[in-house]
């Protein structure tokens, strides 16, 4: 099992445990409400309830339907649970953005359908772990999109629920074991009991008072409805065009990186931009091309006479090659896999800056001290031993793995967008919003909170037509087969919130321009229809071929 899989397994188990805890608390709260005569009878909530519709194929962590005695109304409840693992510094983790976008669009899509069905419902969200682990807008966006969004810190602040739950549930093999242990924890005095009881009381109070549905969430769901209805007549042709395969731009670029050549001029131009944007790829290819020469060159710079601190400092900041040496330094002190290499617990050192930024002298010192301690602890005490590690076959493998990661990971390599720009630029230049004289695409969720900062979307551009007139907003992205539904969810939220603005209490169209999603995908891929419809319902027009894109732009 590789590092990524191990990390994911641990995260999956953590999520599983927390979901069971929520399930347990919901069940207890419903039992209490039934005892008090608020609801007709207690039910055991369902877990992992599938919700399928024309634009959805989602799984909700919790579902139950109960009858309130006073009003005689039957209400169904759908819930999601999210875990944030946190870090020692309590700083925001940029990578959680994908997940929140998916969670929000799922809830809004479900809402659109439940509203249409005229059923009485509420949609809930439970967040476990430190709220400061994510950007500050998350909390406000959840509050605006669910009927109830609850954070674990609202129950008991700073309580480490994950460690306590892992201790309680260690070695459980079945749900039966888990339920038994949770019941024991619920009945015997402990910090966990206080947490559980507090949680049950919160749920009981909320369900017992049953606040009105969230009007702001309803309004968002209605935009999805409007967009879907206005595009419904085009759906058949969009789906048809998705079945002839994609351009596989990303695949062709990766091929060209390996081969060092291409006959497509747009690929060559794209490649140049990829290299300019990611120095690691060309540096790593050069180093791997002659690994022993690279090793000799490093060895000459890091002399045996240097003390270990000076050697680490040199390697961390070595000109041209630090994108390689840093990747090695963060891993080589341990013979085991390093799960979260960017978790140095030093401010401003994040996954996004780790390999690319020259830090200030103060931060640099902290980084060097951090690694000095790590290498000392591992019994590596001089420059000579460190050099041995740097030029080892394991080091080479780390560079190979990193290269593989960077050429396949969508967030570090964006050839699809570059290619589209290159292919259109003769007739339809793509420019920034600023250059087009348009307001920046800051998602409408920025308006949900007066204190939270929301950055504008970085990967959207404006297409200019004749006389430099803006005619469309565009994004181009590579969609891999297994990730297609997830990517569509994520981009649906981007489209929806960029296309619309919230003015006062009204959602209005921000640009009155079509939003085009150029879907770069494999030539043999047929995307799931619901994922395409999801993009359409969120305001996107998916296009799969450069020629179709040009034809469409001609009509604007």
């Amino acid at each position: 099992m590789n590092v990524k899989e191990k990390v994911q397994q641990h995260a999956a188990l953590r999520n599983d445990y927390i979901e069971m805890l929520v399930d347990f608390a919901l069940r207890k709260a419903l039992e209490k409400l039934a005892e008090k005569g608020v609801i007709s009878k207690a039910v055991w909530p369902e877990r992992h309830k599938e919700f399928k519709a024309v634009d959805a194929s989602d799984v909700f962590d919790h579902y139950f339907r109960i009858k309130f005695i006073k009003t005689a109304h039957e209400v169904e409840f759908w819930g999601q649970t999210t875990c944030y693992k946190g870090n020692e510094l309590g700083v925001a983790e940029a990578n959680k953005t994908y997940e929140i976008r998916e969670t929000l669009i799922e809830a809004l899509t479900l809402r659109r359908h439940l509203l249409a069905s005229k059923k009485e419902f509420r949609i809930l969200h439970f967040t476990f772990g430190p709220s400061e682990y994510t950007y500050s807008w998350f909390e406000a966006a959840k509050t605006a999109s669910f009927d109830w969004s609850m954070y674990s810190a609202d129950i008991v602040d700073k309580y480490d629920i994950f460690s306590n739950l892992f201790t309680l549930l260690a070695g459980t093999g079945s749900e039966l074991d888990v339920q038994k242990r949770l019941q024991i924890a619920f009945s015997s005095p402990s910090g966990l009991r206080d947490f559980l009881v507090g949680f049950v009381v919160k749920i009981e109070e909320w369900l017992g008072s049953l606040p009105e549905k969230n009007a702001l969430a309803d309004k968002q769901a209605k935009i999805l409805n409007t967009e879907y209805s206005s595009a419904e007549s085009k759906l058949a042709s969009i789906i048809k065009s998705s079945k002839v395969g994609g351009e596989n731009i990303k695949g062709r670029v990766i091929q060209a990186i390996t081969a060092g050549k291409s006959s497509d001029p747009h690929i060559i131009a794209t490649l140049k931009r990829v290299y300019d944007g990611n120095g690691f790829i060309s540096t790593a290819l050069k180093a791997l091309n002659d690994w022993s020469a690279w090793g000799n060159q490093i060895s000459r710079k890091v002399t045996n006479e240097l003390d270990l601190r000076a050697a680490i400092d040199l390697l961390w900041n070595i000109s041209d090659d630090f994108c390689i040496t840093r990747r090695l330094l963060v891993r080589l002190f341990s013979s085991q896999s390093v799960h979260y290499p960017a978790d140095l617990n030093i401010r401003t050192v994040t996954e996004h800056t780790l390999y690319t930024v020259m830090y200030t002298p103060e931060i640099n010192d902290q980084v060097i001290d951090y690694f000095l301690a790590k290498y000392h602890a591992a019994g590596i005490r001089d420059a000579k031993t460190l050099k041995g590690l740097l030029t080892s076959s394991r080091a080479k493998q780390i560079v190979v793995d990193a290269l593989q990661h960077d050429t396949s990971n969508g967030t570090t390599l964006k050839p699809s967008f570059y290619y589209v720009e290159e292919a259109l630029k003769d007739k339809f230049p793509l420019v920034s919003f600023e250059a087009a004289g348009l307001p920046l695409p800051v998602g409408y969720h920025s308006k949900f909170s007066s204190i939270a900062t929301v950055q504008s979307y970085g990967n959207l551009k404006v297409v200019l037509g004749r006389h430099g007139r803006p005619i469309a907003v565009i994004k181009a992205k590579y969609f891999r087969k297994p990730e297609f539904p997830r990517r569509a969810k994520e981009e649906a939220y981007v489209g929806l919130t960029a296309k619309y603005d919230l003015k006062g209490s009204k959602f209005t169209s921000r640009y009155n321009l079509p939003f085009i999603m150029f879907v770069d995908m494999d030539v043999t891929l047929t995307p799931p229809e619901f994922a395409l419809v999801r993009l359409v319902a969120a305001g996107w027009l998916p296009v799969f071929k450069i020629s179709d894109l040009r034809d469409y732009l001609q009509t604007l």
Partner: protein
Amino acid sequence: MMLLKQAALQLFPPEFASVDWRDIWERPLQDGTAFQWSIVAALTRRLMDTGWKYKIPLIDFEQQPVLMTLRNEIPIAHLAQAGHSATSDQSVALDDRFMASLIPKLTFTKDGKVLSLFIEGCPYHIIATGQRYEIRPDILLLPGQLTTINKQGQMVEYQYAYSNELQLEGVLRVSSSRLLPLVQKTPPQDIALSVLGVVECSVNKSARVASKQIDGYRAVFQFTGDEGTFLITGNEITADCGSMTHVDLTTTNLSGLVSSLLEAGEQIRLHLVEPGVV
């Protein structure tokens, strides 16, 4: 591959004509699924020929054509994509997959004896023994039969009559968990549960791999010596893997392939089902 399909469909009872085989017969032979189902067909035919009556428990289910080829394995979420929310990408609904995991593919009766045939797993063994293991025998023969299976909301309840003395009961909760989603079982304590035997169908395994697999079955199902396991190979293996036989999959002769499969079915019968009853 078409020949193997023809042979298997010739051997299966008529009810199997409606099974949705998906792409099982089109996959490369090394995938093993087609060979495994061919052996099921041959064993069924030999048991029918020797006086056993068969029953297809899934026959009462509307979804039977789709569910038949699913493994008898309780759906367990092995790996979530952390950092992403879940997407339902299964064409068969989760509750149907739970039901299918518990229902034997075939049940055979003769002179008061009852046994059930499972494919690539047997939830009753896992639940009753409390063992968690990764191995999945291609075919598993368990004494007894499923007598009740019901879905009540998110709960699936079952009763499996293992013997006159032992009734296995339980409730599973339909969910996509990494843990066994069992919420109730009878008997409540973990017990030893004997299986009649397991069959490993190997298209092209090396002796070392096959032998390791057979050793794995011996450990999990507590077989001693030569009992309990039967290996059928599509290639010649010279190693001590207990009882075994060979089916020539390179043949282009349909009747030859059918006889070879039937001979393998007969060997399984003689070794695992009715030792010594010729």
